[in-house]
C-alpha cells in the first residue's frame, strides 16, 4: 500500500477535510494509522460476530418445528455467513487478509460480540435472538451505513437491507408462540427473560467508560453514543413487547413523562465483563467449534489450491 509521502501534513489535512465534509474515505486514500487500526479492529470484530453468531441459531436448524420455519432459519444462518463475507471483504481493503483475521479470532486475540456466548436452550431462543439481538444489532448498524470509511459503509448498507427480515421473523416466531399453547407462551417468556439483559449490553459499556468512543465519533466511524442507542432500543422494544403479550424482566422499567423516554434498571456490568473475559456459558464452545471447522477444512482448501495450480495453464 503506497501512501503520499511528500507532505504528510497536507495528506492529514485532506483526510480531516474529507471527514468533516462527510465525504467517504476510500481504501487507497491516505489515512491516519489509528483510523486504519480502529477500523480493522471494529470490522473484524463485526465479521467475527456474524460467523460465530451462526452457531447458536444453527443449533436449531435440525430441530425446527415446521418446514416453513426450517427454511427461514437456514436462510437466516446463511445470510450471517454472507454478512461475515461482506465484512471480511471490507476489512481486506485495509490491507489485512481474512486468514490473518481468522487466525486472530481462533487464537482469542480478536473479539466477537459477547451476546453469542449465551446458549440457545429452546426453540423460542431463535425468536428472541431475531427480535432482540438482531433488533439491537440493527440499531447499532444503521448509523454505520453512513460511516466515513466507504467499504464498511457499503457493506453495512447491504447487510441492513438483508437484516430486516431477520428481526421480523424472530418477532413473528415469538408472537406465534406467545399466542399459542400455555407451554409455548411460557417458552417465549423464558427466552425473553434470558435474552433481554444481554441484548442491552450489546450496545457496549456506558458512555463514560467506553474506551474508543470519543475518537471513533470524531472520525465518524461511530455516529451515536452507546447510551443513546441503548435508550432508543428500550423505547422501541417496550411497545413491541406489549403487542407480543410478553413482559420484559425489569421491575424498574417505566415511562418517564418528563424525559419522554423509558427509565430502566441498572445493568449488571460485572456479568458483561465476565463474559467478555471468556467466562460466559459458551465462550469455549463457540471458539472451539470455529477452530475445529477451520482445521477440518484445511485439507479441502489445500486441495482446491493444489488443483488450481495444476490446472492454471488450461483455460
Amino acid at each position, binding site marked *: 500500500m503506497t501512501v503520499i509521502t511528500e507532505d504528510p501534513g497536507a495528506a492529514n489535512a485532506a483526510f480531516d477535510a474529507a471527514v468533516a465534509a462527510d465525504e467517504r474515505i476510500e481504501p487507497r486514500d491516505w489515512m491516519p494509522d489509528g483510523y486504519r487500526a480502529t477500523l480493522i479492529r471494529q470490522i473484524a470484530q463485526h465479521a467475527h460476530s456474524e460467523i460465530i453468531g451462526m452457531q447458536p441459531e444453527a443449533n436449531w436448524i*435440525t430441530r425446527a418445528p415446521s418446514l416453513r420455519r426450517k427454511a427461514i432459519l437456514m*436462510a437466516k*444462518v*446463511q445470510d450471517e*455467513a454472507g454478512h461475515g463475507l461482506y465484512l471480511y471483504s471490507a476489512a481486506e481493503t485495509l490491507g489485512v487478509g481474512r486468514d490473518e483475521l481468522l487466525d486472530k479470532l481462533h487464537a482469542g486475540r480478536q473479539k466477537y460480540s459477547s451476546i453469542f456466548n449465551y446458549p440457545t436452550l429452546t426453540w423460542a431462543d431463535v425468536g428472541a435472538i431475531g427480535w432482540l439481538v438482531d433488533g439491537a444489532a440493527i440499531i447499532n448498524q444503521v448509523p454505520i451505513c453512513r460511516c466515513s470509511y466507504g467499504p464498511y459503509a457499503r457493506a453495512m448498507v447491504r447487510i441492513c437491507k438483508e437484516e430486516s427480515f431477520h428481526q421480523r421473523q424472530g418477532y413473528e416466531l415469538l408472537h*406465534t408462540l406467545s399466542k399459542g399453547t400455555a407451554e409455548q407462551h411460557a417458552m417465549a417468556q423464558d427466552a425473553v427473560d434470558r435474552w433481554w439483559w444481554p441484548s442491552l449490553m450489546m450496545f457496549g459499556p456506558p458512555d463514560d467508560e467506553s474506551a474508543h468512543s470519543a475518537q471513533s465519533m470524531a472520525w465518524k466511524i461511530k455516529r451515536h453514543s452507546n447510551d443513546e442507542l441503548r435508550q432508543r432500543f428500550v423505547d422501541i422494544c417496550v411497545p413491541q413487547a406489549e403487542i407480543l403479550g410478553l413482559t420484559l424482566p425489569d421491575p424498574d422499567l417505566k415511562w418517564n413523562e418528563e424525559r419522554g423516554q423509558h427509565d430502566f434498571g441498572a445493568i449488571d456490568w460485572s456479568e458483561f465483563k465476565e463474559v467478555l473475559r471468556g467466562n460466559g456459558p459458551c465462550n469455549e464452545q463457540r471458539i472451539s467449534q470455529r477452530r475445529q471447522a477451520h482445521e477440518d477444512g484445511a485439507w*479441502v482448501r489445500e486441495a*482446491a489450491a*493444489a*488443483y488450481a495450480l495444476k490446472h492454471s495453464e488450461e483455460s
Partner: protein
Amino acid sequence: MSAALCLGDDALVLSHRLGEWAGHAPVLEEEVALANIALDLLGQARVLLSLEGDEDELAFRREERAFRNVQLVEQPNGDFAHTMARQLYFSVYQELLYERLAAGEGPYAPLAGKAVKEVAYHRDHAEHWTLRLGDGTAESHERMQRGLDALWRYTGELFRPVEGLAEVDWAALHGAWRSRVEDVVGRATLTLPEGSDGSGWSAGGGRQGVHTEPFGRMIAEMQHLHRSHPGATW
C-alpha cells in the same frame, strides 16, 4: 407408494443432512453454497409433500418406516469428500430424472421444469468439487475415493422404478447416470468403485420404508420438538 412422497422425501432428507453442515463448512464461501443447495431442496420437498397432504404432518408425524426416500440421501455427512460423493451421485440422478419428468406430460412436469435448473447447479457444484478433491492433493484424492467407494452400494436403488412415473425409462436413466458419473470421476483421476451397487439386493430399500440405522436418529432429532407439542402451531 406415491411418487410425490418418494421424490419429496429424497429432497427433504438430503436438505436436512446438508443443513447439518451449517457452521461446520471448510470455508465461508462453502457455508453459503451448501445452504443454497439445502434451501433449494427444501423448497422442492415442500411442493412435493404438499401434493400429498399437509407438509408438516408428513415431515414431522410419520414414523421412520413410512418415509420413502432412497437410503443414499439419509447417509450421514462424513467428511466434506463423503458429502460431495453423495451430492455427485444424487444430483446427477436427480437432474436426469427431472429432465425426463419435465419433458413429459405427467403431473410432476411443472415442478420438475423449475427444479431441474436448481438441480443442474447442484450437479455442477458437486462436479467441480469432485474434480478438485480428486485431482487436488494426495489426501483429498484418497478421501474422495473413499467417499465414492463407501456410498456406491446405495446407488443401485436410485434406478428401481418408482410407481407413477411411467414416463421414465429406468434402465436408460441408469445408463445415462453411469456414463455421466464415470466421466467426471475419470476426469478427477478417480475410479468408479467395483462391486455391487446394491441394485441386485431385493430385501427392500428406502422406497419400501426400509432405512439405515442413522436415519432413525436423524428423524428423531428432526421431529422431536414438533411431536412434543401435539396440535401446536409454529
